[in-house]
């Protein structure tokens, strides 16, 4: 095996050319890395910065706008963890809290629909798990191209089977979602996944790698060459013709391993064996090591050759960048290590001590005695570039808005009306979605009170008291295309209403912002407007965003998707027996019910 690029070597070969541009870094971003390190980065360090400073991980284009969610948020005593954590945590009773979040897995699902969607579910579930919660349900807002298009027929069955395959095998009921068709999603379907979990308040977990001398443990699957560079290439680059060869290998999910990971983590939490924990998602070890260390302002010493590999020939930068699924990073006190390993073994999950927490404030990684990384972890996590991107209202907006619905011909007379109604309810966007939802297990765990086709999913949380939650996710790209500010507000209002009519009192909001390229000023304008709309809407309703995700670069060539903010609202129900299903209940009052129309 050839010797890796070491810190020493980097110091003595300052002029060596490095492929920063290919890794998605700009010239001045690269210069900034050199300034931080006082030398050129090693190959491993360059890979780490390129991933952590990518749009996907650093939120460099969205950060300045997302701030409004916190700035405009009303005070909320229920919020135990908010934006900046793996997922927002909201207290719902003296003892219990719930955590929920929605995330995107759009590009991987276009490349390999089944695995892309499956690993999307797996990823969001690990976020929930990392907060100390038992995941208890999933939802899946989906967008596809024209229903008749051959590529939709390739993508859709795989995505639905993948969402179901992973969620069903994990034993998580699917309690709602969306299936929307529009030609704008043709080359860029949206696969968003939401998960919710429940935890005793005192089981809340932190990601901080505190306590010098504590052990860093990698738990779960072996590391392979999955999605190497996936973060920077797959999630942040557009699909043009040239990108075909650059597609990294696809991640394959193993829901069985994830189920074991869930059970072992919960047992570790309950036994009080964990100081800190972080899931490995996009950016893999790089993200988990730097985020846990940076959060504690600590240092870390990692022996990379200890990482269990699926392919022994992997080089250090590949190990650091791998997006292999079903892994978690634990920080454990040395005297508890044996107990941790024992619980992992009980569940048949690999657990390996790969490093330790240090005082130094540096993340030092060696590989067979070669020092390949020596960085301040905060520089990767917090000191990434931040951009105020130019914005401009799309020039076609005036025309689009002028083309009003009032100008469309209207059906006249009973027959024409009947024909129109029949055509509408038979259309792919409005028709019954059972053909999708019956591929999902809605019953597992035995607490599903309402699920598809109800307005909101309702879950019983506490069997004794009947305490439960209602959840809905909504979005409308066509409204948002016409008016991103109000489109985002409308998505929020719809989810809010859905929760309310099911009997829930809305208490928290999550969101996944699916947009085109932030380098396009008109997309950036749409984004800024949507964020402003959502933040204002939340403020008006007296509710706050507790977490979410931004997905940029959803476009094919120069054509961006409609701006598609997807909003999830969580509501509280004191007694789920009082939930309100849609439709007329046949049993109680077969006849004579009065029908009211509320509002204008």
């Amino acid at each position, binding site marked *: 095996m050839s010797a890796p690029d070491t810190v020493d070597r980097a110091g003595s070969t300052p002029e060596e050319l490095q492929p920063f541009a290919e890794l998605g870094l700009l010239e001045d971003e690269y210069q900034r890395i050199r300034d931080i390190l006082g030398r050129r980065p090693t190959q491993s360090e360059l890979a780490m910065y390129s991933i952590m400073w990518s749009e996907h991980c650093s939120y460099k284009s969205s950060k300045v706008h997302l701030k409004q969610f916190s700035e405009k948020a009303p005070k909320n005593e229920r919020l135990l963890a908010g934006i900046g954590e793996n997922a927002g945590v909201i207290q719902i009773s003296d003892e219990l809290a719930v955590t929920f979040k929605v995330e995107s897995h759009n590009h991987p699902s276009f490349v*390999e629909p089944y695995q892309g969607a499956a690993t999307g579910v797996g990823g969001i579930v690990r976020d929930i798990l990392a907060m100390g919660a038992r995941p208890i349900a999933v939802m899946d807002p989906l967008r596809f191209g024209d229903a008749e298009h051959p590529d939709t027929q390739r993508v859709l069955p795989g995505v639905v089977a993948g969402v179901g395959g992973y969620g069903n095998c994990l034993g998580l009921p699917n309690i709602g979602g969306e299936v929307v068709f529009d030609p704008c999603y043709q080359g860029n379907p949206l696969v968003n996944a939401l998960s919710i979990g429940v935890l005793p308040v005192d089981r809340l977990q932190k990601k901080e790698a505190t306590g010098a001398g504590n052990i860093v443990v990698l738990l779960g699957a072996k590391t*392979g060459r*999955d999605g190497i560079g996936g973060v920077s290439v797959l999630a942040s680059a557009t699909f043009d013709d040239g990108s075909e060869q650059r597609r990294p*290998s696809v*991640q*394959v*999910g*193993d829901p069985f391993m994830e189920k074991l990971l869930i059970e072992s983590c919960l047992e570790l939490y309950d036994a009080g064996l964990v100081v800190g924990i972080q899931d490995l998602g996009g950016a893999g070890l790089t993200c988990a090591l730097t985020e846990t260390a940076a959060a504690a302002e600590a240092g870390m010493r990692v022996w990379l050759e200890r990482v269990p590999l*699926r392919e022994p020939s992997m080089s250090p930068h590949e190990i650091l960048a791998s997006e292999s*699924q079903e892994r978690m990073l634990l920080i454990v006190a040395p005297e508890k290590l044996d107990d941790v390993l024992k619980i992992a073994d009980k569940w048949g999950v690999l657990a390996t001590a790969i490093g330790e927490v240090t005082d130094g404030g540096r993340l030092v990684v060696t590989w067979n005695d070669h020092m390949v990384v020596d960085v301040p972890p905060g520089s990767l996590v917090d000191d990434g570039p931040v951009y105020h991107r130019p914005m401009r209202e799309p020039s076609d907006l005036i025309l689009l808005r002028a083309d009003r619905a009032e100008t469309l011909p209207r059906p006249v007379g009973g027959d024409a009306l009947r024909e129109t109604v029949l055509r509408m309810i038979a259309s792919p966007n409005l028709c019954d979605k059972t053909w999708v939802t019956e591929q999902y297990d809605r019953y597992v765990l035995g607490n599903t009170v309402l699920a598809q086709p109800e307005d909101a999913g309702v879950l019983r949380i506490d069997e004794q008291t009947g305490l439960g939650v209602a959840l809905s996710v909504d979005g409308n790209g066509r409204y948002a295309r016409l008016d991103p500010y109000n489109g985002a507000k409308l998505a929020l209002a719809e989810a809010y209403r859905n929760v309310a009519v099911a009997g829930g009192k809305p208490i928290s909001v999550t969101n996944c912002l699916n947009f085109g390229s932030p380098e396009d000023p008109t997309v950036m304008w749409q984004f800024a407007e949507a964020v402003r709309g959502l933040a204002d809407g939340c403020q008006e309703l007296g509710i706050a965003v507790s977490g979410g995700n931004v997905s940029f670069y959803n476009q094919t060539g120069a054509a961006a998707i409609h701006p598609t903010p997807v909003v999830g609202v969580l509501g509280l129900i004191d007694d789920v027996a009082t939930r309100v299903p849609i439709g007329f209940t046949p049993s109680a009052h077969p006849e004579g019910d009065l029908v009211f129309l509320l509002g204008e």
Partner: protein
Amino acid sequence: MARVVVDVMLKPEILDPQGQAVANALPRLDVTDVTSVRIGRRIELEFSGDADLDRVREIADKLLANPVIEDFTIHADEQVKA
């Protein structure tokens, strides 16, 4: 009549959870000398006339295998041909 067999296996670098699960189960049957298990699909196509392997390759590439994560090999099944 000809029979052609298409063997479809996950690419070596792709995780094979199925094979993994079987490999982990083998020690319980007192089998300890198996170092790796990979599980794929064996697809037998029966043709009414002669089989054109180039066409089978095309079918495999388009329909039988998923080239993003799988490799395949094709061979005529001798048993039937005989």
